[in-house]
């Protein structure tokens, strides 16, 4: 705790400078919360004062025992060393929003072939509540996968014919077939997957990494998001910046969303007639005013604003180099396919993700969002797989040949699974599948994940997990672990709680997924 007997000079700037009563004067507020507020405010305010931050570091070290605690979650002086040596320096998360069916992609269920249109045994469903979309159906008829599977590579992993290119990577993938989540609808399920919690307001995985580890490249954002052009116009999943927000962490840890087209970051280009020097002088002027405001009111958001202006200025030079693909060798286009030349496609985004990774961006999340196949699943999933298979393969192969797969973690998957029974009409070549949170499949690749394995097992209906369940919290813990982070120790004090990505429920690193 701050003790003004030792630190005479700085605690007075933590209240509202005499303009209003301080929170500290209010009755009925637990002392602990007051202390938390005082610390947060004081630290941020103090650190914002540029050169004085260094003096503060010295002061903090004199204070001895107090110092590490005071430095725990400040912007400038946070201890950003990983808890232990990391395997991953960066990650590329291929988020298949809308939830791809596990039956046609990764979870091979040969016994279903003989059960076409039979009723799903009640014992399997076990009385589970269904969504409003299928609860009123008279029957729950089994829909076997129209897609065929074959074993690939030395590992003999079963891969779908819909992913002919990704299948060539069987010996590199670490497939998990036993993921589960609580949410049964997209928005809460995608939020759970991206932030660890189905309620909005928590920091995204990428924000936690930015906060915990800092930037490798200070000229680019630490966390980048790209949404991909949709290859089919049905089942489009809504996405919003809640999914990549920094929640209660400082807004500087939120993702920068790159847009498709020739202006990937809006308003980054200088307006006509404004030279770079003029722009610099303007930003300096605005920053000066902001600093004065900060001195007066001490609101940490002002500092964030200042640093965002600086980042935007730096991105004016770093982004054009990033988006100029003319330095790519011809082999790039063979790998990712011709669509990679068209801004905004999934293929283009995959190539961009490699370029971001090369430049040290810690976390890139690509969203592809038309997997929500309630109806016409065979037709639509074919389009989705065709759109994404080659670029996904291209990305991993490219990372591998450039020596980057050893420290780049690639993650592929959606937010939940789909049902074994058909939603709507069932024909061998036409059916739909509803949402299913009890089990779903994903894969990881690179950065010390165990290659060529299939972990976890579902029953013959891919309805329940029968072996080695992995909650999405465990997946988060495992991802953080590869970054050298102990998931229970990366915390931020907020609302009286040491907040952390996996939340307060038990979570664990899954050692079987790692080498």
């Amino acid at each position, binding site marked *: 705790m701050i003790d003004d007997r030792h630190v005479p000079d700085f605690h007075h700037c933590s209240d509202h400078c005499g303009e209003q009563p301080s929170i500290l004067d209010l009755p009925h507020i637990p002392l602990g919360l007051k202390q938390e507020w005082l610390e947060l405010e004081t630290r941020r305010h103090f650190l914002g004062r540029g050169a004085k931050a260094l003096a503060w570091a010295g002061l903090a070290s004199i204070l001895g025992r107090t110092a590490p605690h005071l430095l725990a979650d400040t912007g400038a002086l946070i201890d*950003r*060393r990983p*808890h*232990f*040596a990391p395997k991953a320096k960066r990650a590329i998360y291929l988020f298949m929003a809308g939830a791809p069916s596990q039956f046609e992609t990764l979870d091979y269920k040969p016994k279903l072939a003989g059960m076409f249109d039979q009723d799903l045994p009640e014992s399997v469903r076990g009385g589970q509540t269904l969504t409003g979309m299928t609860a009123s159906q008279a029957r729950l008829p089994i829909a076997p996968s129209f897609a065929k599977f074959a074993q690939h590579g030395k590992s003999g992993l079963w891969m779908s014919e819909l992913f002919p290119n990704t299948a060539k990577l069987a010996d590199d993938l670490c497939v998990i077939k036993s993921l589960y989540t609580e949410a049964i609808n997209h928005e809460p399920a995608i939020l759970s997957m991206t932030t660890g919690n189905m309620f909005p307001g928590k920091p995204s995985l990428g924000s936690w990494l930015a906060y915990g580890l800092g930037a490798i490249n200070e*000229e680019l954002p630490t966390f980048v998001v790209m949404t991909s052009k949709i290859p089919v116009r049905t089942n489009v999943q809504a996405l919003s910046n809640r999914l990549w927000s920094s929640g209660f962490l400082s807004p500087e840890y939120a993702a920068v969303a790159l847009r498709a087209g020739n202006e990937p970051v809006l308003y980054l280009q200088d307006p006509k007639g404004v030279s770079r020097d003029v722009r610099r002088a303007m930003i300096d002027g605005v920053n000066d005013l902001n600093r004065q405001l900060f001195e007066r009111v001490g609101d940490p958001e002002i500092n964030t604003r200042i640093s965002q202006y600086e980042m935007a200025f730096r991105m004016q030079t770093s982004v054009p180099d990033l988006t100029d693909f003319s330095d790519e060798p011809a082999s790039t286009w063979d790998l990712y396919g011709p669509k990679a030349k068209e801004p905004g496609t999934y293929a283009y985004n995959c190539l961009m993700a490699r370029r971001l990774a090369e430049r040290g961006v810690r976390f890139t999340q690509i969203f592809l969002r038309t997997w929500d196949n309630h109806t016409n699943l065979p037709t639509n999933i074919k389009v989705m797989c065709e759109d994404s298979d080659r670029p996904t393969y291209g990305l991993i192969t490219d990372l591998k040949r*450039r*020596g980057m797969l050893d420290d780049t973690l690639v993650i592929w998957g959606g937010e939940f699974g789909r049902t074994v029974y058909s939603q709507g009409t069932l024909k061998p070549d036409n059916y739909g599948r509803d949402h299913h949170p009890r089990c779903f499949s994903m894969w990881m690749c690179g950065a010390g994940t165990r290659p060529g394995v299939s972990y976890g097992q579902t029953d013959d209906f891919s309805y329940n997990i029968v072996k080695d369940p992995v909650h999405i919290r465990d997946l988060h813990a495992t991802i953080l672990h590869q970054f050298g982070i102990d998931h229970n120790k990366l915390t931020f004090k907020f609302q009286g709680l040491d907040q952390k990505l996996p939340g307060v429920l*038990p979570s664990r*690193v899954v050692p079987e997924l790692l080498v």
Partner: protein
Amino acid sequence: MPMRRAIVLFLASAGLAAAEPATFGSRVVPILEKNCTVCHGAEKQKAELRLDSHAAILIGAKSGEILKPGNAKASELMRRITLPEADDDVMPSDGKPHLRPEEIAVLEKWIAAGAPATAEFDAPAMVPAVIAPPAAPDYRLRLAQANELAAGLGLRLVPRSRVVTDGLVLRTASAPGRCDDAAIAKLAPVADLIVEAELARTKVTDAGLASIGTWQNLAQLDLARTAVTSTGVARLASLAKLESLNLSETKVDGAGVAAVRALPALKKVWAFGTAAEPVAP
């Protein structure tokens, strides 16, 4: 994070072994925590067996007891850990590393002594060699110096982790153009702390590799898209700890790769987009 905690415990106990009397708690628990309790502990109970307390071990598994106090040979636990590594029944399972002979010996002595919960038993000494050698000298006293030196050159030297002997990473991504041979040469006073050098896209040339060739603790070196050639790469030939070397999109040819191939620790070389591609394993 159970694995890590277990390792720390294990090392601590190895250090204490000489001073502290050998008991279940001081010698057996660390071995079980390191190797077994991920599957036989609070979170998972494979075969309904828990190995995280003395009482639980005596209760045994689904199929019954796993221990005959006083008779190590007749104990299922001993049989499982002494099977050949390829055996389906061997423990730890799932291709996890076999117990080391010293660890097996400790468990054997403990069971033979009647598997006491608290009483001392006559355990063999731990071989201290299990402690991995530090990657670099303790950085604590020289971190400020390293940071200052790097910042003055427009570079960054960041600790690889909180483990103070994990060394420093030379980071240049913010401004690769600022990192040239002269800057590299100036890092000499702290070069022994550097275990990883991210030099892709920098201005480093063969001349700079003469300096880097003296960075004895360097394990990872990324030179992708630099102007280095095989002549320079040959200057790395005394980096005894170098594990990975990225030469992608440089002018290096087969001669460069051949020059480092014999390095004792080298595991991976990448030479994508060079005349040396593909690199034979």
